[in-house]
């Protein structure tokens, strides 16, 4: 029988971790699903959000909330700028896209190392303090971060299903040629998709650094986790990525609680492999 304290920790901490992973993985799968681009620089955008945000606080004296908003918008523009300046020209060549985006990820890592050093950074939280649920202390920033992540994902869902441009993006993701034939500006839609995807990654990075900490070496770790979650959820399926993020997040939290922290990442990856053996296209992927 699980205790009340363990249940609360499980629910809240699991949701926080899952929410942050959902932000990064949904953006990653959105790009693939719509633009058919495997953007390996996505982990770099995730961490860039944290470092840009911290620079705004230290350089301009902004408060954490304002710098969070500005940094995620900045990352959005960086992502769409990368697409416009580099990827748009080579998007037909998948291997070239992989090479370019991987190189970008490493460049981002090195730039951060040169500018900020190898030390991790802790972003001042938007909300400080602790909230007690019974006897269980819960950092306010965790709860707030979880709420923000869930709200962002909800808004993403609304955007994709309820807005015109969202429906156009969905159409383009289903058939690029058909979308072109009916007069949709596919490149503009791709740029918007990159912007949204990068914005989500930037938001994820800022939230992550407020709850935990960010360091340059997370560029590749974030990419690996996002990629694994996206594969589990089904490449191109935003819904799949969100569900997979919560599966992975809760598995890790349960394992930390009952088996030990050292097993958490291993178990998460084992579950991903097992799921893919059973359903190779992922939970919500489309069979080709």
């Amino acid at each position, binding site marked *: 029988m699980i205790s009340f304290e363990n249940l609360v920790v499980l629910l809240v*901490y699991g949701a926080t971790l899952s929410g942050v992973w959902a932000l990064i993985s949904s953006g990653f799968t959105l790009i693939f699903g719509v633009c058919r681009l495997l953007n390996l620089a996505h982990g770099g955008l995730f961490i860039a959000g944290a470092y840009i945000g911290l620079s705004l606080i230290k350089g301009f004296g902004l408060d954490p909330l304002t710098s969070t908003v500005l940094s995620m918008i900045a990352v959005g523009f960086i992502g769409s700028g990368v697409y416009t300046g580099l990827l748009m020209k080579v998007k037909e060549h998948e291997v070239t896209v992989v090479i370019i985006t991987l190189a970008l990820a490493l460049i981002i890592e090195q730039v951060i190392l040169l500018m900020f*050093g190898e030390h*991790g950074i*802790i972003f001042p939280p938007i909300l400080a303090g602790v909230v007690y649920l019974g006897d269980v*202390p819960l950092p306010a920033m965790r709860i707030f971060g979880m709420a923000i992540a869930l709200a962002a994902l909800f808004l993403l869902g609304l955007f994709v299903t309820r807005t015109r441009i969202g429906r156009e993006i969905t159409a383009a993701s289903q058939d690029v040629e058909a979308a072109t034939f009916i007069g949709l500006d596919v490149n503009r839609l791709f740029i918007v998709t990159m912007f949204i995807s990068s914005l989500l990654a930037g938001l994820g990075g800022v939230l992550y650094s407020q709850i935990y*900490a960010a360091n340059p*070496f997370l560029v590749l770790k974030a990419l690996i986790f996002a990629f694994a979650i996206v594969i589990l959820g089904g490449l191109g399926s935003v819904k799949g990525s969100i569900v997979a993020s919560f599966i992975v997040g809760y598995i890790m939290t349960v394992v930390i609680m009952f088996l030990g*922290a050292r097993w958490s*990442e291993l178990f998460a990856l084992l579950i991903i492999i097992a799921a893919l053996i059973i359903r190779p296209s992922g939970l919500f992927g489309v069979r080709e």
Partner: protein
Amino acid sequence: MTGKEKTNVDRRSFIKYAATAGIAAVVAGAAGYFSAPTRTETITRTIPAGEVTRTVTVGGQTVTQTQTVTVITTPTRPPPKPPAGKTEVRIGVLAPLADRQGKVQENAARLAIEEINAKGGILGLPVKLVVADDKLSADTAVSEFRRLVTAEKVDVMIGGYSSGVMTATMEPMAELKTIFLADASSPAHARKVGANYDKYKYWFRITQNNGITFALDGIEQIDYLAANGVKIDKLYVIRDEHIWVDEWEPLFTDLLKRKNIQVVKSVKIPRGYTEYEPLLIEANRLGAQAVFNMLAISGTGDVLAKQWSTLKLPLLLMGHDLAAIDLGFWQSTGGACEYEIFMADGGVVQTAPPTPMCKSFIENYTKKYGYPPEAHQGYGAYDAVYLYKKVVEEAAAAGESNPFDSDTLVKYLERYTLGNAIELTRKVAFYPKGAWGADGTRWDHDLVWGDEYVKNWVAQWQGGKQVVLAPAWLKNADLKLPPWLK
């Protein structure tokens, strides 16, 4: 002889004898004046060689005394000369230069060499620094070691950081018979020397103590807290999942048992782990008074400090966290590390330098590079250069045919042992051949551990600075408890 003549003779004799006696009395009296009273004076001053003239008052009379003083310097023979054909001394530094623990070694060695060259070098020879990057790779370290010794002709090697890399590097060291004044904490290195002394005797650990001593330092923290009114009887351990902890955790747990202190749980965490809050909540639920960390590899000590400071549970944060030793830890945690108790590896906290040489090293390093030594490896490298200079000069003064010969220098290095530390930036001494450590294994050529030598001091973050809490002779602050614990 007539009577009158006899009388005249007697009178003359009397006068002669009386005069003699009188003169003798005068001489004796004068001698008495000059020889008494006998005083012994100890004059402590610098006396230049040559004649010394001084004026003293003897019996009310001013007397000028002149004495010739010959000042004896050691050695009395001419200064030793280097071996014929040797034109310079080459010191190698092999370390991970992309990391601050490696870069600081290069910087510190360079500073030491500049200072030594400014004073004439070693045996009158200029000293040159040769640097190589081991890139934290055993393969790279081995090949670079060989290159430095065979191609660059270094006379001595300084460096290291990773225990795994050090284990590999000891092989070319042994093969090429090169003195290696080393960093890295694994007990395995000293055990190699103990197991095959003749092969590995060139290795001396100078930067920090054998990793087993972390267990002893941990107990020191517990004892310090107890002495300051903070009783710990339950500990929650958060440790790296790494061999460096495997080697000393059993000893630590055993020592805790003897003090009736229970380890309520020991949690291993992988590299990059960040979910400390559930662990802290669990520690509190299990009744621990403190979380004892054993972290170096995880790389997320800043997250632990931050989450501990956020939750404000009735738990002390103590132990060994490599991140907490970093001077930038305060900034990187946003001050969340305030009140964290940690071990100051390598025996130096910059606010309390243990020796005058340490103080001036910190000042000169800061002046030269614009910031203080970034890691404790800097003290080890600086000491290594000066120690090498010292033993080479001693070997030369003793008349050794080749004072740079490694086999020769091993003997001179071994003289700096228990009871005969050399004061550098720390008081450095090495355990002798055949020494056994606290864990029952061989500690040959390990850095001697102790209050009078090098230890990981009990330290704490207070007000943005690292302070020393113990030992008493070095402390510069008292324990401060987090306000939420009072």
